[in-house]
């Protein structure tokens, strides 16, 4: 197995703790991210997938649990310097390319902000050159550096967001629904760009999205979240061909595909959490069914899934 880049252990993110409206947005989830892979995270809105990404990168202070980056704990108390070092390695691309770029800054300064903070350029000329190179990397050109964000289309803005993330030469990028706000024809452009960059720079991605066909296309492994919990985690191909958790099955059966014949014969499954019929004594946790394929289940369910997969 490849080297672990990130280990997320029992991560919890609660809001309004102790009040009546306490929300357990992320409720005790654990997973690893390997070097050079793309891990997709899917689920319905409100399932905690974005919160997971934001907690990992410390946009929120996690309620409990640990995140290890190359074996080093990134949560908990840190000196400013340590944080800076860590921030350089981990970057984020946001969903809304309109809201995530400062309207009053020129592209040059937006992209160079990270370079300035980390002192990566020795002088103005080098700073300029770095920005020009980044613009070229994401398929824009240097003339764009002197413009403001409003002069760009949605797809171009998302490219700026990517250039900004790349400016500090990170190893790991969290992409939170980076294509949801874009048109179909532009989505493909951005996804192709992300894939190219991954090969070129050896990046690792956490790709958060609700468009399952795009997630399958870009991801090596996929995690499915439901109400703050990770319910299934498997290699992309395996998850689609052999979904084991009833929620994953229901989610997959709901995706409309651009194929009228398939649509005419589609049978949709709905998910009712009551099917599990867990009682208090049940030890419900992630269990490995086949190598790399984890499902949240009780001991009883584990046995029956095992039995079913043997008989197949």
């Amino acid at each position, binding site marked *: 197995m490849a080297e672990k880049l990130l280990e997320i252990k029992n991560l919890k993110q609660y809001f309004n703790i102790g009040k009546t409206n306490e929300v357990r947005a992320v409720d005790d989830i654990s997973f690893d991210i390997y070097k050079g892979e793309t891990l997709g995270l899917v689920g*319905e809105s409100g399932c905690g997938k974005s919160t997971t990404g934001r907690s990992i990168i410390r946009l929120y202070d996690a309620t409990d649990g640990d995140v290890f980056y190359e074996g080093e704990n990134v949560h908990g108390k840190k000196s400013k310097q340590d944080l800076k070092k860590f921030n350089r390695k981990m970057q984020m691309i946001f969903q809304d390319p309109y809201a995530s770029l400062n309207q009053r800054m020129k592209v040059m300064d937006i992209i160079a902000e990270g370079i300035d903070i980390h002192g990566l350029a020795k002088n103005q000329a080098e700073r300029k050159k770095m920005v020009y190179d980044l613009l070229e990397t994401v398929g824009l050109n240097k003339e764009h550096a002197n413009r403001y964000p409003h002069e760009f289309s949605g797809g171009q803005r998302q490219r700026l967001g990517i250039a900004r993330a790349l400016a500090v030469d990170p190893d790991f990028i969290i992409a939170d629904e980076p294509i949801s706000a874009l048109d179909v024809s*532009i989505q493909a*452009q951005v996804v*192709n760009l992300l894939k190219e960059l991954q090969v070129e720079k050896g990046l690792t991605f956490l790709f958060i999205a609700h468009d399952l*066909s795009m997630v399958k296309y870009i991801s090596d492994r996929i995690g499915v979240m439901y109400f703050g919990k990770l319910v299934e985690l498997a290699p992309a191909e395996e998850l689609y061909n052999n979904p084991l958790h009833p929620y994953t099955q229901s989610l997959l059966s709901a*995706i*409309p595909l*651009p194929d009228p014949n*398939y649509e005419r014969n589609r049978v949709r499954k709905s*998910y009712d959490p009551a099917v599990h019929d867990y009682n208090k004594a049940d030890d419900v946790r992630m269990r490995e069914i086949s190598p790399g394929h984890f499902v949240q289940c009780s001991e009883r369910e584990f046995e029956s899934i095992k039995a079913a997969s043997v008989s197949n």
Partner: protein
Amino acid sequence: MEKILQVKDLELSFNTQGGEVKAIRGVNFDLYKGETLAIVGESGSGKSVTTKSIMRLLPESSAEFKSGEILFGGRDLTKLSDREMQKIRGKEISMIFQDPMTSLNPTMPIGRQLTEPLLKHQKISNSEAKKVAIDLLRLVGMPKPELRMKQYPHQFSGGQRQRIVIAISLACNPKVLIADEPTTALDVTIQAQILELMKDLQKKIDTSIIFITHDLGVVANVADRVAVMYGGKIVEIGTVDEIFYNPQHPYTWGLLSSMPSLDTEDAKLYAIPGTPPDLLDPPKGDAFALRSEYALKIDMEQNPPFFKVSDTHSAATWLLHPDAPQVEPPLTVIERMKKFPGSRYYEGGAV
């Protein structure tokens, strides 16, 4: 089949400070009784403007009908007075919008929003309207409708709100229902429920639906026929099978191959290069030519007319001209064509 609505040579412009934006540049289509016509295209292609012009919801200060007509029940909707239009809107033609939060009034209980069109368009008493409203809520699958009548929109989930919007739009048994991206703001599981509900209701009340979306999966699910729009024009129109299994326009090819299907291999996704045309100054020839690798010389100069592929299928591309060179569509499109009897790649077997 009976034609419910006919749009003929419709041209519409917006007068803006920057000049005249030619948002719709000659759109023709018919809507038949009981069918679902899907209009697909990217933002700015004119799909929403087309339907808003049918409903006459565009600001009269800036939107201007240049030519053409919209025939409904023997009348041209572009020529009706506001008063006459009010009698049609919400009664004979109604609309479902994308965002169920902004299309409901947050300060009014949903019961009153449901009875509003009934009291406006039908001569019935308050208590009768209430009964009809409760039936409507039941029809769209809302549990405990009597209790929920008194509640406000914020007390419902997104999917429930969209059900309420659908109930309101169906209150007067409209002949035409226009659904503008009704499921785009919803999660896939909720989207599937709403689509099933709409298909179900359509069978029950035999209404015609114009369904606007950019999600080709949704189109494959709901549509009987599909119109593909680009740069203010329809570039291809046909039955759902013809568009998905025997597409002819390079833009349709691009759309179909830029979406990964669940069995797309690791190959690179096809991305349509460039951006949509600027309709302030629309290109002279085929608006898609600048982004198309299949563009011919004539595409830059002359706008292609519609070429007939079958009785139900036509496309506006010079590639269908008898003198045009034969080109190979993208691989993913050829894969689709293999399933379609009548296409030149057909490999046998039923569709």
